[in-house]
């Protein structure tokens, strides 16, 4: 996706995870072969967790915000996905101008979606490829949509 809204992103705040999730985020991007996010960024983990939080509709307020992910870690595409979540949640189109509100809503869904993400990773049978779990889930989702 490409958008011509140059200058529009100024003021997009750092994105936070919950203090309880700090280690989880760090572990998920480690290159140890146990995570599909190995070698990717915390922003990738955040967006995936947020998407699962929306799918299961489980927003969960953060107990303590750790604003660790800078806005530049999120691609334009990712930021627009966060905005779509905020629009759906608030049912207000104009919310996307308010970056703080958008990020806050996205954070609660990511926080709530993390449990589903961990479930996908931890419940695999020994010897099963981690990507095949994600692929199966994705195929199921595409089929049902």
């Amino acid at each position, binding site marked *: 996706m490409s958008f011509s809204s140059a200058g*529009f992103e100024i003021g997009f705040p750092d994105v936070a995870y919950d203090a309880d999730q700090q280690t989880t985020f760090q572990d998920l991007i480690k290159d140890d072969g146990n995570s599909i996010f190995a070698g990717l960024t915390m922003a990738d983990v955040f967006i995936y967790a947020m998407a699962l939080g929306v799918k299961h509709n489980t927003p969960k307020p953060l107990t303590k915000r750790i604003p660790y992910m800078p806005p530049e870690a999120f691609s334009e595409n990712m930021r627009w996905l966060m905005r*779509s979540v905020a629009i759906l949640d608030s049912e207000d189109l104009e919310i996307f101008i308010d970056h703080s509100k958008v990020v806050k809503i996205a954070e609660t869904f990511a926080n709530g979606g993390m449990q589903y993400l961990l479930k996908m990773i931890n419940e695999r049978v020994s010897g099963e490829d981690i990507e095949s779990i994600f692929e199966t889930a994705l195929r199921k989702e*595409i089929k049902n949509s």
Partner: protein
Amino acid sequence: MADNKQRSFLSIRLKNYRQYYGDSGKISLAPQDGKLINIIQGENGEGKSNILNAMNYCLYQEEPHFKSQYSGMPIVNIRAINDAADGDEVEMIVELELGNEEIKYKIARKITFFKNKLIKQVDTEGRETISVTRIGNLGSFPTGVNPTAKNSFQWSTGKDWKTEVNMEHHIHKLLPPKLKSFFFLDGEFLDEIASTFKGVKKGVDELSQLNLVYITIADIKKMVTTYERQSKGTDTETDTYLNEKQNHENWLESKNLKGETVYDKENPGLKMEEGGSVWYHPKSGKPREESKKKELDFLKQKIHEIDEQLQKNNSSVSQEWSINLAKIEKLLPKKYESLEELKSNKIKYLVQEGPFVYLRESVTFASNLIDKKRKVGQLPVKQNEIFVKDLLEAEKCICGTDLHDEKARQNIIDWQKNSSKDSKLDACVEIGVEFRNKLKNFKKDFSVLDKFRSDIINLQEEIDNYEDDKKELIAKLKGIDEIKVKELFSEKTAKEELRDETLVELAEIKTDIKSHERERNTCEVDYNRAMKNNSKLKGVADKLELLQKLHKTFNIVRHNVTKKFQDSLGENTEAYFKKLVWKETTFSDVVLQEDYSLKVLNDGYDVTHDLSSGERLVLALSFIAAVRQISGYKFPLVIDTPIGKISETPKTNLGKFYPKYLADTQLTLLVTGSEYESNIVGVKDNPENHSVRKLIKESVNVEYKLNYNEKKKQTTFGDYT
């Protein structure tokens, strides 16, 4: 004394240098009537390479094209030493004149010494020899003599010669020593360029002025270190992050706390030279990766050489097996690489596209809401191109105006152009369109997954088949009862095992490097944040952050300049190479890689190792021509035995085209009689079977013949007959 014109060698004078006994006087090389090719013909061992050495010695006091038969011999002619009585003065002179019609340069190296009693010794084979000692960069002399050097650098724009004191500085301005290998060439170096590319990087860095960027990066790094040192001892948190960051940096550069390189002392590297001394890889990080890559190249080269020997030694059937095996072995690593890449792309797709699938509801909702608001005019659509486009396509405005009328259409277009551009919500409409497009293509996501799956399965099957074929061929070839073949196979297997281990280690190092780099960056972010939170360190933090950004920016500049330079060098090399060998062969691309090695591709497959020695020489000459074109140094070119190894077609093409490529450049060729005068037969473009001599006749300025007197061990310049 600067000039911007192409320079040529005007003369060379040799007195008692190696086999050149006595004073040759000035041997003219000066161009006349616009003819720029000089020929010096001599058979092997008659002194061709020592002309190249003499030029190098005169300019840089080096003799890089040294043949082994001269090791242990003094630089001064033996007959001149023997002729002199004890106490007599012996003189050696190497003198060059070069320049153009605007300015001339005269460079001379003159060495004298008084002969004393020669010290005799017996070598390992029982022969009596004269003992010689190497004296600095002056060369080797009879042991016990005390040579005196008188060097001079003079220049002239008219009759008078002016002398410069700082000789080396002026020579380096004419041609930096790192670039000399691109101007003084011998066949062996050309072969080396095409296969190992030793030293090319240094020369190319010099040409592209990347050295300056490296210096800047190093200076900024020093400043960063200074500020980091200033931040130490203020609070525990910043110190902890800084220590962690530096630990990662030390690992990445394989350094200890004192800044010294740490070596893997327990595991010596492979011996890459006959009788070479024991050496060790750096312990970690990028230096280890570089060092291991070199070893990998060496192993690949050795395996290739064994393959060639196997092909020569096997019977015709087993030869075919060997060829097939070599092909499979060349192909397999690429296939495995493609498989890994495919798997990694699939994971990337799953991670990046997955959220969109799960968020389809919210994206659809947002998209519909945008459409709804747009339709009822709740979005500031007046400046929106998409909205205006919709209206024009519908041919009816929302106010009811019929837009079939050209004037009404123009009004709408003008209105959009002139309207205010400060609407933030305008982007909403754009994202609406993007979302709609995404949703429209949604079904295809399934097919992408299917394609990934089938591609991976197919590739895996292909690899399995190749592995089976490989096993079968190895088993067949092992059955051949030929000792040499067996030995070669066992050597090859050992080398292949080492190669595979090295490949695995390289992959692991790469992952480790990535991981340390990421953790180092995280530490840097934490360190910067901790410093900013400390009021005492705020000032240092700001400066440091600026320097860190500068460091990153210069590294990007380094990367971009290298890329641009390499691209241009690669394109030019390809153009020359194609012109010289293209017509008769099927090479599709020539690619200059990051490490400056050249790859020749045929339909995407690397066929560099399949090139004949002649083709490799043409490839190297093409690279040299490209480097010279880009370098801008107006220096003449000297090539020793340039065309001996080349087959008839490229020889004809070289003869015809090479003088044209080098247009205004003086070219001195040191040739053997057969490579220069033999008729070239069986080439379509050369129906009269002309020799190289005949093909380049029009461009030849002077021709000399080296006359070697075996009895007197003496070479003199003579006329070409």
